[in-house]
């Protein structure tokens, strides 16, 4: 069973290095993992494997059982397994860390990306990676080699760029570049032109990618807990603003909710998965809730 503590972002914050953090998450999580949701996307049979407790009974080859009285699972071709495209926003806004958050949005997203990469590679699926701000900062082609993990983590771990975001054009470009159909996992706060961003997402969908939007947000952005006169220094080239948060809270929360609703509605319209990540939330909750949704959709 995952120990709650091991997946607490506060615990993760104490660990140095993404590798350590990712292993922590994966070990904590995999201990209770019964099956990978990514199986089933593959179609070409590869070989049989002996049954082990925790395997899905759906994949038991009953004919082999009838013949040999032993449980064997049907396994499929590696290459034809799922390709996971990790799309990580490393713009300046992702570096924001609110007063109540143990990790910045970027750090949290890095952990999530690393964990997914690890998990996926464990399943012998292929993982690709893109980091971006207003342009693509790095691009690693998908691979399922276990040695690939080291490279992935090295790129994921790179610090933010301090640049503006431009999600719309980036998503369009990526939709063109991801030639093989796969799962596109977007980790971003989506602070950008919403309409352009949604158009980009739509493009992924159009390319028949399976898109998962992990909307990474800081609790401060969701609750606006500030009190007393405050000078807000805008990231990503926004100006400074002196404001009374008490007087503005209601209006801000209304604006922010409208933004979230727009994003959610857009995702729903194009049949994209939307998942909100709060950076003070335990990672197992994030992962489990997401995987549960995936499972239901896969069936």
């Amino acid at each position: 069973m995952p120990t709650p503590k091991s997946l607490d972002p506060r615990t993760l914050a104490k660990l140095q290095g993404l590798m350590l953090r990712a292993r922590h998450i994966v070990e904590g999580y995999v201990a209770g993992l019964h099956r990978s949701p990514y199986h089933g996307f593959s179609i070409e049979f590869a070989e049989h494997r002996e049954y082990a407790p925790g395997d899905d009974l759906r994949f038991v080859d009953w004919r082999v059982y009838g013949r040999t009285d032993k449980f064997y699972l049907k396994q499929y071709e590696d290459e034809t397994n799922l390709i996971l495209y990790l799309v990580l926003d490393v713009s300046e806004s992702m570096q924001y860390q609110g007063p109540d958050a143990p990790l910045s949005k970027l750090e949290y997203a890095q952990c999530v990306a690393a964990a997914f990469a690890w998990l996926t590679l464990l399943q012998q699926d292929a993982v690709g990676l893109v980091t971006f701000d207003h342009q693509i900062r790095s691009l690693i082609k998908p691979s399922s080699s276990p040695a690939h993990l080291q490279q992935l983590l090295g790129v994921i771990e790179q610090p933010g760029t301090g640049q503006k975001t431009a999600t719309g054009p980036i998503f369009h470009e990526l939709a063109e570049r991801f030639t093989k159909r796969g799962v596109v996992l977007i980790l971003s706060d989506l602070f950008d032109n919403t309409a352009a961003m949604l158009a980009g997402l739509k493009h992924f969908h159009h390319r028949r990618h399976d898109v998962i939007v992990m909307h990474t947000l800081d609790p401060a952005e969701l609750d606006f807990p500030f009190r007393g006169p405050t000078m807000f220094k805008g990231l990503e080239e926004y100006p400074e603003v002196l404001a009374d948060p008490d007087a503005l809270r209601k209006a801000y929360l209304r604006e922010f909710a409208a933004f979230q609703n727009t994003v959610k509605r857009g995702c729903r319209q194009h049949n994209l998965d939307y998942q909100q990540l709060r950076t003070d939330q335990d990672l197992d909750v994030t992962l489990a809730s997401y995987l549960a949704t995936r499972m239901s959709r896969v069936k």
Partner: protein
Amino acid sequence: MLFWGLAALVPIVIHLWNRRRYREVSWAAMEYLLAALRRNSRRILVEQWVLLAIRTLILLLFALALAQPLLAWLPSLGGSLGGGQTHWVMVVDVSYSMATTRDGKTRMERAKELASQLVQQGVQGDGYTLIALGDTPEVIIRTPAFDPKDVLEEIDALRVRHGGARLATGIAEVEAIVSAAREKQKRLTSTQVCIFSDLGRNSWEEVTSDDVRARIGRLAEKASLRLFDVGDNQRQNMAVTRLDVRDSLVALSRETTLEVELQNFGNEPVPAASVELLVDGRRTHTKDVELRPGGKATLAFSHRFDVPGEHRVEARLAADILDVDNHRYASVPVRESLAALCIQGAPGEAKYLAIALQPTRTDQPLVQPVIAPESALVERDLSQFDVVFLVNVGRFSRDEAAVLARYVRQGGGLVVFLGDQVQLESYNEHLTGDQERVLPVRLESLAPTGEYSFNPLDYRHPIVAAFAGHERAGLLTTPVWRYIKLKPLDAARTRIALGFDTGDPAIVTEALGRGRVVVVATAASPKSVDNTTIPPTPWTALPTWPSFPPLVQEMLAYATSGRTAERNVLVGDPLSGVLQNATLAQALEIASPNGRTERVSLEPEGEDATWNFGSTTASGIYEARFGPPREMAQLYAVNVNTRESDLERLDVDLLPSQISTDALTQEAATTTIPTGRPTELFRWFLGSVLLLLVAETILAWRFGSGAR
């Protein structure tokens, strides 16, 4: 107080300060914050302005509420509006007309209420001076007092004096106090002189004099003058104006006549004014008398004193609106007998005098005359005698003159009969000197022998007053052939009791020190003769004439009155006495009618000791108690001067224009310090502050985080 208004700036300063003090945070979701700002900036600005306005208004109203009593007071009293404190000079009339009651309350009580009200309504930092306006102004608080509690206590302790009030001296005192305060107390920027009086004519008619008007004019330049009238139009007052013992010598077991004079000061007749006579606290007589408006009546009561010693007599009228003057007191010392020393210049000279002093043979003679030669003057202790008669004494030595002078000064009576042995130079040299004067006259010269008669000079002097209406008593027919011309030394003090038809004085009297001296220009025995004529002519037939015994008795009464005259005085006059051969260790206490007892110290005067007691502020009987070794008591009667009993009021129009009388009302019962001013407004201010505080709390909650 208006400085508190500056506190209204506090919220503004805090607001500005807050704009400078803020914390900085970096912020990613700027787009949405900016959108919120764009849409709400106008609303937030309005909300902030509303809150700021409310907070400023709260403090401003609070300051106004604090300042408002002061603001309302200053203009109403004509004081300066420029802030600063007020010096309140409160002058309270303490003349006894202030004891007049109306509806069970005296004018004094009303004045005290008003004065207290004034103090209570004053503001922090005001100074108060308190003056009791009596016959002499009594300054109770001279340098301004700043603690209202002390002032209220002093006001409460004020009592009516049994005297009048002198406006002129009072105003002079106020002027001095105001000048001194303006010099020493710079922060008292305005001065209010508040006079609390019943505006009695007797006290206030001085206000019409040029001197007082000028003083008030000067005072008005430094201070605002304000009269609080506590009087009313009641005038129906009666008083006992006189209580006298008609017989100047009150003797034991003899009928004595006591005269009581009453006056109705009102303008309505009194059909039956009831008068009681109390002797030693016991009611002995009661009489009713009718009194016309403004009329007087004299009643005579006959009384026999059966015990020698000091007696207290009181005449008492039934109560009316003013009780102080319904009582009059007398101290009556009753003597068992009098000691008279008759010094004769030659044997037999005093024989007729002795007979006249003791005309009837009784077991208890009133006067016990002792006849002695000239040498007795220095040999005997004169203080044992009530009166000394000198009959045809030729000359005096310096010592004898000194003895006589001391005797008279201490209150002894001296009657000098002249005669043919008298040496004018010796008399003039030793008895009329400036230092040790004994006689009221110089002996000028012998009048030529002739036929002279007495002129009673309208019987004005007490010595001859008894002869008035009794022409057959023989005073006018008394033959005189020779006398010594007398020239009064001090015309203002000497009185001529009897004259000659030539215009020369026959009997001259003077009160010297405490004593009384009588000089008779002619002789007291038929032995004095003019040998220059043939046959020799006697000086006078007076000793054998029927007028002689009564004349001697009256002279005796007059001469002995010195020791008792000071027993009956008016309020404010001092009581005094002399103790012969007394040491300063002699203890003396004076018990006042108000129950207070004070020790009085003695002052040396030669071989004697004198005492003086000035605090006769109340009417009644005062008792002087001498401790060992004398062990005796003397009674003194102190009476009111009934001038103040006339309750007529001064016409308000006669008041100088500088005295503001806006609090003046016809019926003093309704006189109050005007408070119609906006105490209500001040309440409104505080009420508004409360409402605004509630509104501020609700709005701040609505505008702020509470609502969202």
